[in-house]
């Protein structure tokens, strides 16, 4: 009985299904390609598919962290992909104009400048949502559409190629035998986790997501919290944009960060955060990002075209969403056991598609 109970508790844990999906994917990969999990040391650096997955998922983790906070306030940020493109374009443009592209100070100036612009764009989103009160999906749609144009305006429609070692290090550098990108993503995750979970801020964000008006009446400056999450999201997107452009040492206003907002939203949803807001799970989001990247990597490894990878993504998305949907679980449970010993928790009443 106790074992059964513990098993059920495990099964009911919000991270159980994401972890299970990830494990199944890794196992399937290993079965298909036995060398999948092997890691080798080369030149003092660790190499191998698992390391690659971690490195490549770093930008997605960053974007998804910001997205988690935005979604937990009941919002959504569609503009992150455009912000990635803009910040990458600005940084690369500045570096490409510098006399010495390897000058560390100059690269840091470029990063600071691009980050500054991204934060301003985030503030624009924040003002639209928190002060003017526009629906988040629309407010950020503006920047999603116009931002691509802005990024192309910055690069004058060209692909800016740079040759800067310090900048490349953001994407491809190593630190303590592991790719630097992993540490940047991990650092950002720990920072966000510390700020939201070691202080009251996380709970404040959740309360604003649960009911903005009620939390305002309870003395929380709701508008300020909402404004802040969009700025943080834009900042995370900017750093992700640096990584993406550093990976290829070039900025393409058209392609950089394309569809990353959708991947980020998926990562957040897979991680168990509801799109209706009011709760967020950073660990789940990171797992979600890893699942998406593992899926992409394994589809590539099977020599399937990147576009067809979308087909697999669709299947995983639907599967995970169905498993997590309270209505689906309730139906499934009722069918399996005639009389449930423990009443399944009533389906959460979703807020009426405010986010949708």
């Amino acid at each position: 009985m106790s074992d059964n109970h513990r098993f059920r508790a495990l099964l009911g844990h919000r991270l159980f299904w994401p972890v299970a999906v990830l494990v199944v994917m890794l196992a399937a990969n290993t079965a298909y390609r036995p060398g999948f999990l092997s890691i080798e040391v080369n030149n003092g650096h660790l190499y191998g598919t698992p390391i690659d997955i971690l490195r490549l998922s770093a930008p997605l983790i960053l974007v998804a962290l910001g997205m988690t906070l935005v979604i937990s306030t009941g919002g959504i940020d569609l503009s992150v992909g455009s912000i990635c493109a803009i910040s990458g374009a600005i940084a690369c443009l500045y570096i490409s104009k510098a006399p010495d592209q390897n000058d560390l100070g100059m690269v840091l100036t470029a990063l600071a400048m691009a980050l500054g612009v991204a934060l301003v764009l985030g503030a624009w989103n924040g003002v639209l949502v928190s002060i003017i009160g526009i629906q988040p999906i629309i407010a950020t749609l503006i920047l999603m559409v116009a931002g691509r144009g802005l990024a192309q305006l910055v690069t004058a429609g060209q692909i800016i190629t740079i040759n800067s070692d310090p900048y490349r290090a953001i994407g491809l550098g190593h630190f303590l035998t592991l790719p630097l990108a992993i540490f940047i993503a991990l650092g950002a995750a720990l920072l966000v986790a510390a700020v939201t979970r070691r202080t009251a801020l996380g709970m404040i964000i959740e309360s604003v997501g649960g009911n903005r008006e009620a939390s305002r009446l309870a003395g929380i400056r709701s508008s300020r919290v909402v404004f802040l999450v969009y700025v943080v999201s834009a900042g995370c997107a900017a750093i992700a944009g640096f990584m993406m452009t550093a990976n290829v040492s070039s900025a393409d206003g058209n392609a950089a960060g394309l569809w990353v907002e959708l991947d980020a939203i998926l990562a957040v949803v897979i991680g168990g955060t509801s799109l209706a807001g009011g709760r967020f799970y950073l660990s789940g989001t990171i797992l979600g990002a890893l699942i998406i990247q593992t899926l992409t990597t394994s589809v590539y490894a099977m020599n399937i075209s990147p576009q067809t990878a979308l087909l697999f993504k669709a299947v995983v998305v639907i599967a995970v969403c169905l498993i997590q949907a309270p209505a689906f679980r309730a139906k499934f449970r009722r069918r399996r056991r005639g009389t449930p010993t423990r009443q399944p928790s009533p389906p959460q009443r979703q807020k009426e598609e405010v986010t949708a």
Partner: protein
Amino acid sequence: MTTGSLSGVPSWARLPRRHVPVLATLALLLVMYGIGVSQYRAFSNVQVVFNVFIDNGFLLVIAVGMTFVILTGGIDLSVGSVAAMTAMVSAWLLQSGLPALPVLVIALLIGPTLGFLMGCAIHFFDIQPFIVTLAGMFFARGMCTFISNASIPITDGFWTTMSQYRIGDPRGNFVSVSVLVAFAVVLVAAYVLAYTRLGRNVYAIGGNPQSALLMGLPLGRTRIAVYTISGLCAAIGGILLSFYTLSGAPLIGVGMELDVIAAVVIGGTVLTGGSGYVFGTVLGVLVLGVIQTLITFDGGLNSWWTKIVIGGLLFAFILLQRLIGIRYK
């Protein structure tokens, strides 16, 4: 209801706020056209207007479907991919030697089927439309490349006839078959929304789902219906797209869903649902088309300015809707 915004003072005087966005879009369209005519002599040519319709016929049909979905307060991100998949499947089936009629039927069935399934997932499992249709978008786009990585040309007689047939006046101006199809879809949609039970249910559910349910309106059936309609419109749009390009390309129409949403919003439909007209959507599509024409005529402006201008217009119209406060939460 679509004609109500134009036909007379009484309805406009009774419900001024509901018509402000549509009238603002109309004014904007006229101003933009006026700018074009005053700047470029060739712009006053009637064929320029016809070309806007010819180039955007498929967009118009898809936007009409999206209007239904958005009126219920939902969203359909899959439309661009579904249109691409329809074109791709048609091209593939024609290439493999199937006659035109069965291909047309099969192609037109895919969209609504997918839409129906998505509607069911949204209604029965309470998953947000955003996520379900996102998965639908991934699925359809994945299917495109699954069929072929390269563009498939269409050489079928029916298709080439449809593509090249010109319906014109004696002075040489013409429209394509796609434009007529698009107009037919617009008229049917406008009728359905204004005068049928389904239309009334769509508005009611978009206005307040709880009240609609309490009134005994069929919430689930209507919601599933709008996603099916949107899928059907996307499929028709895909066919028109294949008439337009005479090929099926796996990457065609990437990002089209954003253009469509932008057109619907610029056309005055409120994204929380419950308020908007098909006529507004037509105007919204025309606004996008005229922007593109203006930028082409200018020659010095680059294509990315289109995106920046559309973004600016989206902002202006959303601000307008916000200021006049129609059903915005």
